[in-house]
């Protein structure tokens, strides 16, 4: 064990160089041909299969698994991608344990689901390895659509629109496309630059122009987009982060988990990403778990994830909680932060234990902390947007907003879980609705 792990403060290169590679390799290594056939063989080809219903993009799971079983993984991939153009990313990041695999009849009966996610990856990887794109554009319609945000919702929408023959311009504030696929998803779920490879593959459809570092509200207004394009799709995700609102929140070493993850995802050398010795993550969702796990993998000695309610209320699935525990993350529940201590840089964080009704108990907990990550939820950013519902853009079923000619989907829009796969589904469905509207206009 290198001595650097014990040193306090926020430091880079805590581990031996080789450790970074093994720590951040694929969470689920890809299935080989034999494993895929064995896994596919377990599928019963259920009628009106519950797994399809549980998939937000309604992938025909029994069909694609049968196509794998019969030796045609590319046909399987096409079945997947027809419904979900980011089937490759979803295969890696979907919490299958709470989606398709949770309801697989073999999970219900035996506690061992068909490995739907890993089979989906097997098929989509097989097709994408060949570098070909299985879809073709329809004849040009002459219509133009502006898509704001190049995350899963925006790109899924853009692809479907392009397929229907519309010309799409995607504008994104960030320098790279992919949204949270590129900047947010845990590194071990999507290693080897998969996010960029998938976007490049997706763009092969043609008819999609991406303008990077072009932000709505800064470089253009919604009014101008409505003026300049036949339709607009808003897919800006959740750019803001909830604040803790306690003393010391502004101390050095206290940051947003999403910023930490984005830095990690963009690092060309993980050894250069500095990490604390005693890290505390506040929150109970996927972001909190990802930040905690990756802090541990970077060499933090003690990582504690503190959540204000019980484990059963955590947004992170049991699988993810177990993953965190297996990596050595300590999970503390029923505690809310009350203060952060330290002279300039944070040194300690103080919590009060609360009961199930969130009432203070008077009992407290102090944890050493040289780095603290806030992960208590993201919020919508931006003004001059269509009407909101709660804290998101209000949409009807197919993404229509209160403004004519403006649709929205993904995390920024109301309804649906904040998941990659949901964003893809909403982008696709909005595209179909936009297409019908645009073509209907012609009579």
């Amino acid at each position: 064990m290198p001595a650097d792990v014990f040193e306090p403060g926020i430091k880079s290169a805590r581990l031996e160089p080789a450790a970074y590679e093994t720590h951040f390799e694929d969470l689920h290594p890809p299935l080989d041909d034999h494993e895929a056939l064995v896994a596919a063989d377990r599928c019963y080809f259920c009628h009106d299969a519950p797994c399809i219903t549980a998939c937000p993009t309604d992938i025909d799971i029994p069909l694609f698994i049968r196509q794998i079983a019969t030796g045609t993984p590319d046909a399987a991939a096409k079945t997947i991608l027809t419904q979900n153009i980011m089937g490759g990313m979803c295969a890696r990041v979907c919490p299958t344990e709470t989606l398709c695999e949770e309801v697989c009849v073999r999970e219900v009966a035996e506690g061992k689901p068909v490995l739907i996610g890993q089979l989906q990856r097997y098929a989509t990887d097989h097709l994408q390895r060949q570098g070909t794109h299985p879809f073709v554009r329809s004849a040009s319609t002459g219509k133009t659509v502006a898509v704001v945000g190049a995350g899963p919702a925006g790109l899924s929408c853009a692809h479907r629109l392009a397929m229907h023959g519309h010309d799409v311009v995607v504008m994104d504030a960030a320098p790279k496309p992919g949204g949270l696929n590129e900047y947010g998803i845990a590194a071990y779920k999507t290693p080897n630059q998969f996010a960029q490879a998938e976007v490049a593959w997706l763009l092969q459809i043609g008819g999609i122009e991406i303008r990077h570092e072009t932000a709505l509200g800064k470089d253009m207004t919604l009014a101008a987009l409505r003026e300049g394009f036949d339709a607009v799709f808003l897919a800006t995700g959740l750019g803001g982060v909830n604040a803790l609102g306690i003393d010391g929140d502004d101390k050095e070493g206290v940051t947003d988990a999403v910023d930490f993850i984005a830095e990690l995802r963009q690092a060309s050398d993980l050894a250069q990403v500095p990490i604390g010795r005693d890290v505390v993550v506040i929150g109970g969702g996927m972001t909190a778990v990802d930040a905690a796990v990756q802090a541990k993998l970077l060499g933090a000695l003690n990582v504690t994830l503190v959540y204000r309610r019980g484990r059963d209320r955590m947004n992170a699935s049991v699988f993810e909680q177990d993953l965190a525990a297996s990596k050595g993350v300590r999970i503390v529940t029923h505690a809310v932060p009350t203060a952060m201590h330290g002279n300039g840089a944070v040194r300690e964080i103080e919590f009060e234990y609360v009961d199930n009704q969130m009432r203070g108990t008077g009992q407290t907990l102090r944890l050493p902390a040289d780095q603290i990550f806030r992960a208590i939820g993201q919020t919508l950013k931006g003004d001059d947007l269509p009407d909101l519902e709660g804290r998101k853009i209000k949409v009807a079923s197919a993404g229509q907003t209160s403004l004519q000619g403006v649709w929205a989907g993904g995390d920024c829009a109301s309804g649906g879980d904040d998941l990659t796969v949901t964003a893809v589904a909403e982008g696709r469905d909005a595209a179909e609705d936009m297409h019908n509207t645009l073509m209907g206009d012609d009579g």
Partner: protein
Amino acid sequence: MADLTSNFLGITSPNPFWLASAPPTDKEYNVRRAFEAGWGGVVWKTLGSEGPPVVNVNGPRYGAIYGADRRLLGLNNIELITDRDLYTNLEEIKRVKADYPDRAIIVSIMVPCEEGAWKAILPLVEETGADGIELNFGCPHGMSERGMGAAVGQVPEYIEMVTRWCKQYYSKPVIVKLTPNITDVRKPAAAAKAGGADAVSLINTINSITSVNLDTMSPEPSIDGKGSHGGYCGPAVKPIAMSMVSEIARNPETHGLPISGIGGITTWRDAAEFITLGCGNVQVCTAAMTYGFKIVQEMISGLSEWMDEKGHTSIDDFCGAAVPNVTDWQYLNLNYVAKAKIDQELCISCGRCFAACEDTSHQAIAMSNDRTFTVIDEECVACNLCVNVCPVEDCITMEAMRPGETDPRTGDVVQPEYANWTTHPNNPAAKAAE
């Protein structure tokens, strides 16, 4: 994209996948669902003569054989032909055909072996607008006890006679469905051709008893403690069906006679294999009964992907492509020498190949103390048994020896020329090579 359109006897369908005459095609409701699911055509459940329909048993009709994980490999049935009224069926056929003009509908018929019976039913069938008829000379149970089905299919003279009547009283294509419960399937096929059949279809089901209940001593499926042999079908019968198809395809007497392939077809690959053996299209029963109509989607996507990969643009491109390679044993090249080879990277050291070879074959696999398994070339006769029992795909392969190399088992140098049994010195009937 490959064109899957099928033209069989001038009957077109969007793909070569038809449902065989059986419960999946028993009535309008099923057939409509099948067409909606994408099936190219159906052979309607066999019709009988006018009058009170046959009566089925009211207990279990099916028995099954399973593979691992309860995968259904073989199905056996004691169902008869349609037990619904003739006119109800005819009206339904007419209605469905009118609604699905692009799909093939063939009417399967089984009436007594008397000219009058055929003369009576054929005009009624003609009137439905269906695309052709299939003569059910294959049902091996129940109906055969009444002198129909396999009882006719086992007598080539009857086949020829009935086929002739059908060609006389019916204007559209006549397909003769053959029974596999016969020693030499070439005879009934030739008889069908002689009678003027436009095509043969095969196989119907095989006489079978799937299991015996060891408590009640009744064969399954058991009807009140007794069982009767049924007809066997499903994946297990595919090898038998393919052999029979290939015999008809390569027999000079019947070569070129269109064939509709049936028997165990479960995936696109099974269908492609039947087509390479000379079938113009295929029919499916058990796979649909096991998994539902939706499997046709996999058959369509799989066949189309494979055709694209191979550069075939139509079914005709590869129809019969394997027929020239089906030959008699005596013509196989005895100068072809292969050896098994174990890929040590893939081997999981289970020892199945060793047990098989050591106990039942040629003692050609060595096992070391650390469980490394290697082939002894001096002993290996290339029988393929180890390949077949190895649980890991492609772990054991058969490697052909090159001409000029010496076979360590025989000490002979591998010869480049083709030489078969007909000229082999050990063959008492050997003809000298010209």
